[in-house]
């Protein structure tokens, strides 16, 4: 099946458009995705349903068109997703004719491999790691393309574009391979895998500007909407069966949107009236808080991200 064309000019195949002016961030990301396909036997794209992984899918589509994207998507499903992101995921897969693999955290809990957290801050965020590593092993993936960006978090700022993981999925952050110029070395031993990050040098604003200029569709929860929420530790939590709430925590209906989307138990909302993309971009430009300021998973300790990454997290 030939995938649908993403470009703005939908009806004219191969239009003569004169001169191509490159967007250098786009070119770099496409270059990295093509290197993954050139250097590895069984790559996969880690798809969370968030804006960064949607942008990755768009870039992968551009990188190989008119050939279909030559790797599947892997979604690690915590079972605690925003329903909007799941509906969006399935539509995208359908539209582009992609192959989607879903690995369920619930299955690992049922099998006794993972143990559910309990209490006020219970989240399945950490449990994703075991499910991810099992899926990598089961399918024999040797490269996982991820949407992480270096501007997100201080441990991520340290990571290579091709980041080698050992057979336990561990990141040896104190002993990374040198990575000089644009020359990527993805040679690994059997059982190891590489995490590849095409958006390494993009900022949050770069992603939003790209989504706007390329007319990329994203789930509705990124835009302002009314939602039942409650405030805890000065963060805005969604009311949901997946989020623990004390009885005395008061709920309210507010205009909010999500700036980053993990699952419901680890993503806090921000108050917002930005219902369309120009307003979102303006809001981010003026924001005094960083993107991951609304990630409950990062709040656990100063080195929370690094520790998760050492163990094989995204």
């Amino acid at each position, binding site marked *: 099946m*030939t995938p649908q*064309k*993403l*470009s703005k000019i939908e009806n004219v195949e*191969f*239009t*003569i*458009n*004169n*001169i*191509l*002016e*490159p967007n*250098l*961030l786009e*070119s770099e990301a*496409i*270059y990295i995705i*093509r*290197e993954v*396909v*050139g250097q590895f036997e069984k790559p996969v794209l880690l798809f969370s349903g968030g804006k960064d992984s949607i942008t990755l899918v768009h870039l992968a*589509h*551009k*990188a*190989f*068109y*008119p*050939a*279909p994207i030559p790797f599947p998507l892997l979604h690690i499903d915590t079972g605690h997703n925003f329903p909007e992101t799941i509906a969006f995921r399935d539509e995208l897969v359908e539209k582009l004719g992609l192959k989607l693999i879903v690995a369920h955290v619930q299955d690992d809990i049922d099998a006794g491999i993972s143990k559910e957290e309990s209490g006020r801050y219970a989240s399945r965020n950490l449990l994703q790691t075991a499910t991810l590593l099992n899926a990598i092993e089961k399918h024999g993936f040797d490269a996982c393309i991820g949407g992480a960006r*270096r*501007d997100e*978090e*201080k*441990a*991520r*700022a*340290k990571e*290579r574009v091709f980041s080698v993981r050992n057979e336990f999925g561990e990141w040896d*952050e*104190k002993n990374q*391979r*040198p*990575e*000089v*110029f644009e*020359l990527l*070395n993805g*040679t*690994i031993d059997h059982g190891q895998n590489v995490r590849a990050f095409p958006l390494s*040098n993009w900022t949050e604003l770069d992603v939003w*500007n790209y989504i706007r200029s390329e007319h990329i569709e994203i789930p509705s929860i990124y835009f302002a909407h009314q939602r039942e929420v409650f405030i805890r530790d000065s963060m805005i939590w969604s009311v949901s069966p997946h989020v623990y709430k004390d009885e005395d925590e008061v709920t309210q209906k507010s205009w909010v949107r999500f700036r980053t989307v993990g699952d419901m138990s680890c993503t806090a909302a921000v108050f917002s009236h930005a219902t369309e993309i120009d307003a979102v971009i303006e809001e981010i430009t003026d924001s*005094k*808080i*960083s993107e991951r*300021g609304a990630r409950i998973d990062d709040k656990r300790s*100063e*080195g929370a991200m*690094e*520790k998760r990454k050492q163990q094989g997290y995204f």
Partner: protein
Amino acid sequence: MKNVLKIATAGSVDDGKSTLIGRLLYETKSLEEDKLKAIETSSRNKGYDYLDFSLATDGLIAEREQGITIDVAHIYFSTNLRSYIIADTPGHEEYTRNMITGASNSDVAIILVDARKGKLPQTERHFLINHLLLTNHIVVAVNKMDLVDYSEEVFLEIKKTIEELAIEYPDANRTIHFVPISALKGDNIIEPSLNTSWYNEKPVLNILESIEVNNSFNTVSLNIQNVIRPKTEQYHDFRGYAATVRGGDLAVGDSIEVVASGQKSKIKSIYLAGDSFKKAKEGSAVIVELENDINVTRGDFLIVGNDKYVKQKSIEAQLCWMDHTALSERSTYLLQQGTSRVRCKLKVSGEKLMKHHLNETDALAINDIGTVSIKTSKEIIGTSYATDKNLGRFIIIDEKTNNTAGVGFIL
């Protein structure tokens, strides 16, 4: 999109690289409130009466524990005039490979020197590495001026020693700026400091804002990454080649020569995401079709137009060794030039340019820089790095460990 400037810090450990970057972020209001708060809290917990800005970039737990930078951190910020990508690199000799990682992807080096200590062995090593990389813009920031009473004499003395280094490692295309600063106190970072009234040039940020990057290349080329064969009904006979246009612009009708096979053809069409273009500017990721069916595979270079190049099975190069296992003249290695890989043998041929302080042998060991003769199993492009930065650089991969063991510059 704003014009992006890529910068790497350099200089010995504790000369103030991370503090300068943190200070730049702070002064340009690029540190969000939550990140600034984290720095305030950590500084207070450590008992400091000032803000420890190195915490903005030293992102690893071990780095914060030891108060040093181990690996390069990439930091992004922008002013009204342009965007910056800064690679904050480690100063320790032990982590030179990480410094090279940062420096090789930058257009500008900010070399810090501690005003009290002056030029140190690592200052020289990092100057030399930037010399090998042919970094065109160097900013020498003489830091910790607050600890030498903002003395003009001290500044001029250090300036002189660096100018002597520049004579030793000459490069006609290089510009060096000198600026006296205190990263900790904020002198000459974004505004001229009253403490250095004798200094009439620009503060750091203004120097960076005024730098114009002009990387000149001599050869337009496409280095093939993937062969695109959709094999769908609609595109049954489509055979395209995926690559990034480097070294100049590419147009339909341009003639090309395939390296290594030597076959010739012409560019029939240029695509991106299904749109067709007459011309693609330098830096575009594209898919091209050729006019006739010749054999092109991943790793091949398409040299565009009548650009001259040489094919060779033996080259001379300068090599920085980055692996804990020393170079062995009896081993074979992989040489990766762009996306092309060939087997090779390495032989140390000249004087070492820079030696690890502990290495007494002639072999090239970790952090050594020397001249080598390389024999390759197949012909490769022998264009020198000075002639064309894209083509004249390569990495050496140790097949036994898969490590990137060295980075080389063809002479």
